């Protein structure tokens, strides 16, 4: 299998007390994500899940270690090259603030293509919106969509752009169970074929949809589970929590 993400001993800390001290969030984490793989990152609050996701995606620089995305080491890339890498290979779904408020759902879906000056047919955009059940909301701006609908538009953006890697940070964190489940299944579908999905979640059902689950604790990978059941994920997270 080809690795789309290859992280070697990455560490990250954040300054606290106005820079007089620092708190270590990630410690020497190594991780490989293969093409077509869906990886879920779970763990107690403050375990470094989101920071790991942002470091892997190049949104947050690591203090040490290396991350290679699509065969390109992030350390050597300037801001412009990083932006182009995101534009051409990566899709994001955040917990909130996913959409540009001034653009319609259709325009939000087509935004990455527009930034890449890559033509995207309106039919493709509409097909993605249809897939997420929002064909009749294409002209609505985010302010006129519910939280769940906004998340669906963000997923439609990912489906339309077909990026090589999708990073999702708590995509169902603010949604009801049914809507959250719909979003997760859409993301799972996004990971079919050569695309990879890395998802940070508190939702055990969500984690259980992944091919592999990483349980984080205190900035280190505490356990890795392959095709686990929700019960196994719960047990692993509980163990991690006990040892915090």
């Amino acid at each position, binding site marked *: 299998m080809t690795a789309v993400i290859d992280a070697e001993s990455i560490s990250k800390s954040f300054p606290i007390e106005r820079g007089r001290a620092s708190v270590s969030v990630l410690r020497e984490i190594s991780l490989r994500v293969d093409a077509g793989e869906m990886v879920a990152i779970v763990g107690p609050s403050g375990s470094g899940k989101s920071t790991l996701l942002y470091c892997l995606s190049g949104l947050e620089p690591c203090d040490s270690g290396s991350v290679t995305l699509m065969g390109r080491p992030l350390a050597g890339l300037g801001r412009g090259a990083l932006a182009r890498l995101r534009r051409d290979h990566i899709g994001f779904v*955040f917990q909130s603030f996913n959409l*540009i408020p*001034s653009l319609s759902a259709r325009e939000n879906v087509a935004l990455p293509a527009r930034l890449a000056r890559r033509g995207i047919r309106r039919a493709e955009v509409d097909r993605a919106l249809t897939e997420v059940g929002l064909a009749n909301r294409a002209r609505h701006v985010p302010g006129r969509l519910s939280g769940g609908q*906004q998340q669906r538009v963000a997923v439609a953006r990912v489906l339309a752009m077909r990026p090589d890697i999708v990073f999702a940070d708590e995509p169902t964190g603010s949604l009801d169970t049914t809507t959250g489940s719909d979003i997760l299944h859409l993301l799972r579908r996004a990971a079919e074929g050569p695309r990879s999905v890395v998802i940070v979640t508190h939702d055990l059902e969500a984690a259980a949809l992944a091919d592999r689950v990483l349980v984080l604790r205190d900035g280190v990978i505490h356990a890795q589970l392959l095709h686990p059941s929700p019960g196994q994920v719960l047990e692993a997270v509980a163990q991690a929590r006990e040892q915090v």
Partner: protein
Amino acid sequence: MPRLIFADLIANARIWLGAFVVILATAFVAAVAAGFIATGNAAGGEAQIGFGSIGGVVIAFTSIAALIVVSSVANLTVALQQRAYALWQLVGMRPALVGWVVIGQLLIVAVAGSLAGCLVATPFLPSIARTLFTTWEAIGRVPMRFDGAAVAWVTVGIVAVALLSGSRGARRAARVPPIEALREPDPPRMRAGWLRWIVALAALGGVTAICLPLRDESFTAISSEALILTPLFSAPLAALGPLLFPAALRAWSALVPGQMSASWFLARHSAAYRLNQSSAAIGPLMVAISLAGGLYTATLIVAEAGHARGIDGNYSIPWRGAVIILGGPLLLSGLAAAATVFMSGRAREREFALIQSAGATNPAIATMSVWEAVIYAATAAVLAAVTMLAGAAVLASALAVPLTVAVAPAAGVAGGGLVLLLAATLLPALATLRRSVPRSLAAE
């Protein structure tokens, strides 16, 4: 409750600071006018006529811009905090109390801004008077007087405008459904409500009443009314800003193909979206361009008509006169535009972060900010051009001379506005680009 009022003022300092600065600037201009009138009244005689007329001119030419600026900014201040108001209700605050807290906050900021404006203006009054009256020595030597009564007039006037403008927002804040707090509430769109229609129709009536009999009036009578013609045309446009400004922006900017660049496309949508929430970014600038252009256009046409009739006279506007007439509106329009963009900085920060995460490069985002400033300034210029042309057409037809428009002064003011708008859009964008995307996207 006082604790909540002050804690919220501090928590949303960015928004309130914008409102404070705009109110301070308005109070500064009002204090200069009030100081002139108070000095004239105290001195009597020639000084009373001189100071009184100049104070009156400053008030007359600044009042439209001041009304637009203070009311738009007061409204925007409330609109940007819808989420906080919804959260207050979620924790059990009665809706009516939410409205009163908002009014209380507006009152504090308006009083503080007005007093600060008066305080800042006081030491400048003598030098402003000396500069304006260098050729009128008797007046230039009169000691300036800016007493408590003048301060009270300025404060009461500005506070009244701020509270009246903010009261609708406060009532709306009290009606925000708490569930909105769980979503991403959009600041409410501006609407052309019944009050705006009444103001617009009244202004239109005033314009018609002045324009219709012009043809039958004497050259002297037309000349004396010429200066107020264009500002009058801008009043109905300003009143119907919520309806006209976004439409004008979309109309002219549609001439540039959206495919030209992603930065242009995003800037156009962003500017239109923000213009739906507040007209403060372009309303005052439109008035300022229209005033400058209208003033010089009227002078050109009157001069042309005077020469045609063999009436000699000095038709040029001395720079001091231009400062008296245009200084206030220009100051307010520039500051209001900058403050409006600054106040909605948090939302813009998130927007930039999101665009970055979608793969936009830093230069693309900087270009987007530049385009946004250009779009605001150009929209103001387009609307001002309509008022200038309308005023010029009426005047030229009444005086039976060819239509002439003074483009350079209008372009100069539009250019100055563009510089301020660029500072307001580009500098925060560049600062935002230094922040990490996850931190910008993090929930509050």
